[in-house]
């Protein structure tokens, strides 16, 4: 996409997304705009110079000169970083989401920074035999292998974790986006599949999981001490944990692996693999993290 002409009046370049067009074509009334959000995807707040010698008028000079790209029609490519409405103006800290790899040995990623999801039992067995780190059993989830845990709170040492996180900053609902061709979400014990809210035109499935409703997935973090199993240094809110149930396509076929992936060797065994990303977003605070996931199948 090109940059928008910013030499004159402010203009607004609006397009329907691919999902919007799909819903419009469906003609079933599902194309109904009911709310809006603002985003600042192009902005790097690192350019906000609070110490500018010329004064506060120059703090955001660089930011205001940021060129803005034309609109993407791909619905998953836009509106990454949304603006937040919080009535209080005196907040100095905002909560974040962090991947907790230190909770126990099961939440650790592979050394190359991804979770390794075995899509069939052969692969599970081989990865376990070879003690490959970061493995998640996608064929028989909950059988003692790894899972993903995301913690929420104020990750600052300026405030003690014994303080409670303000209620309006506590995340109560998470959105997990995952390529539906590869896997589905399941709880860490492998007993309950998560319900898909919708699958978009790019086969990205969105799961909405709420505190109090999806108790196997979203829980209050009641740990208030500074201990080694926590990644949030300050006040803690909730955490989300889940595992993956590999799709039948990946379990029984190598088609997607050969089309979208390649092969790799762990130990002395070769595997097909394909890389993907799972996005976790806080529905309340809008903060998000992308978690790299590698799906593997023994050759």
């Amino acid at each position: 996409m090109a940059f928008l002409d910013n030499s004159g009046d402010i203009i607004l370049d609006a397009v329907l997304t691919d999902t919007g067009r799909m819903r419009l074509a469906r003609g079933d009334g599902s194309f109904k705009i009911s709310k809006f959000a603002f985003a600042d995807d192009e902005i790097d707040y690192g350019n906000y110079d609070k110490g500018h010698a010329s004064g506060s008028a120059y703090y955001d000079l660089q930011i205001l000169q940021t060129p803005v790209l034309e609109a993407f029609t791909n619905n998953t490519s836009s509106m990454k970083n949304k603006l937040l409405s919080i009535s209080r103006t005196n907040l100095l800290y905002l909560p974040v989401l962090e991947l907790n790899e230190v909770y126990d040995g099961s939440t650790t990623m592979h050394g190359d920074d991804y979770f390794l999801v075995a899509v069939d039992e052969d692969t599970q067995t081989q990865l376990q035999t070879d003690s490959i780190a970061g493995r998640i059993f996608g064929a028989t989830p909950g059988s003692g292998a790894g899972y993903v845990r995301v913690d929420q709170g104020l990750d600052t040492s300026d405030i003690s974790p014994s303080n409670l996180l303000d209620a309006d900053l506590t995340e109560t609902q998470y959105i997990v986006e995952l390529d539906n061709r590869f896997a589905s979400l399941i709880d860490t014990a492998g007993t309950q599949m998560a319900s898909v809210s919708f699958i978009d035109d790019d086969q990205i499935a969105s799961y909405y999981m709420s505190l109090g409703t999806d108790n196997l997935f979203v829980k209050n973090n009641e740990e208030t001490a500074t201990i080694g199993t926590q990644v949030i240094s300050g006040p803690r809110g909730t955490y989300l944990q889940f595992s993956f149930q590999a799709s039948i396509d990946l379990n029984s076929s190598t088609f997607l692996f050969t089309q979208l992936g390649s092969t790799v060797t762990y130990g002395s065994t070769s595997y097909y693999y394909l890389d993907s990303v799972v996005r976790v977003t806080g529905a309340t605070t809008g903060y998000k993290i992308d978690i790299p996931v590698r799906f593997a199948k023994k050759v």
Partner: protein
Amino acid sequence: MATIFKSFLNNDVAVTRTLLHEAIPLTGTIASGTYTADANIKNYAHGMFQSVYDYPYLSSSANHIFDVTVGFSANSNLSGTTHNSEAQQAKKINLYTQMAQILVGHDETGTVRDFDQDGDLSGGIKIKEAVFINFARLLGKDELKKGSFSATFLTGGTPGVRAPGNTNHTQPITINDSGAVNDYRVNSPAGEYGILYSATGSQVGLIYYQAGIVVLTGAVFGGDRKESGLGGGFGPPASGAYGPAINTSAAAYDISTNSSSYDAYMTGAAGSISGAADAVRNCLQSMAFNNTTELNSTIYFCRANHSEFNYSSNPSYLASSKLVVKNKTTDMPVSYITSVGLYSADNELLAVAKLSEPLKKTPTNELTLRVRLDY
């Protein structure tokens, strides 16, 4: 409670309708003469019409501009047995009938009406032999703008493909639909239409605005070839050959050698539809009109009140959970808007709008961004 979405209220959404016009100037060189061997002219095996492109039509870059065809009514003298050995007689009748039933409709007995010179179907002079120019929707869009059409044909001189240095074409005649803004007809099943006039005020055809079709009487192309009583017409040039070359056979268009055949342009050995279309194209000096696109728009007023959208979930907004735009709690938060997302109730992004430059949002200002979606 922190929120990232804001719901639209009833007064945040407005529906409007706008008519957008574009000027479409077409030079005669596009219709003939720009490309060697008429590479931008597409003829079909069925021979019932000819398509004009703005570029050699075999290229994917070519855009369809208009089609040309000719036809005559079953009530025309040309449809009689005298002419039944002439080229494509049946197809010309079929084409006329097809266009007439779409554009003029049927009478109370179910019979297809002929095109009428002044739009008064109850009587008067009928256009029984016609040239049809059908504009592609790519150019015509939703409709042609009333009162904007004009075309200039070169009606004298020796016919032939116009080329630089060829000055044989003379006698330019301009026709237009002047006054159609306030004077048009609505008794067509194909929508509104206007009357085309020559510079002398003669009624020489019809223009169907929604259909994007121009119907020219055959009389346009020769003074003696007009229907009896049509009046005016372009008439023969002051001297020299009569023309132009609706039929590329000189004998056919030249009234001095073919005076008995006022309808020669549509008959004779060379009077095929594509031959007649060739001649019409080669006579065209210029053509222009304005098209109309009807934009139905929904305008969403995205209002950011002073207490809203002052924080960001941008990862660069925080350093160790601390806002990078604040030093202390009493500093005002600030955020910058570059995008507006329009969402469904289930949080699917249905439309997105981008600002050309970042907009600063603080608790001391309020913004209303007007996002228009056109359908």
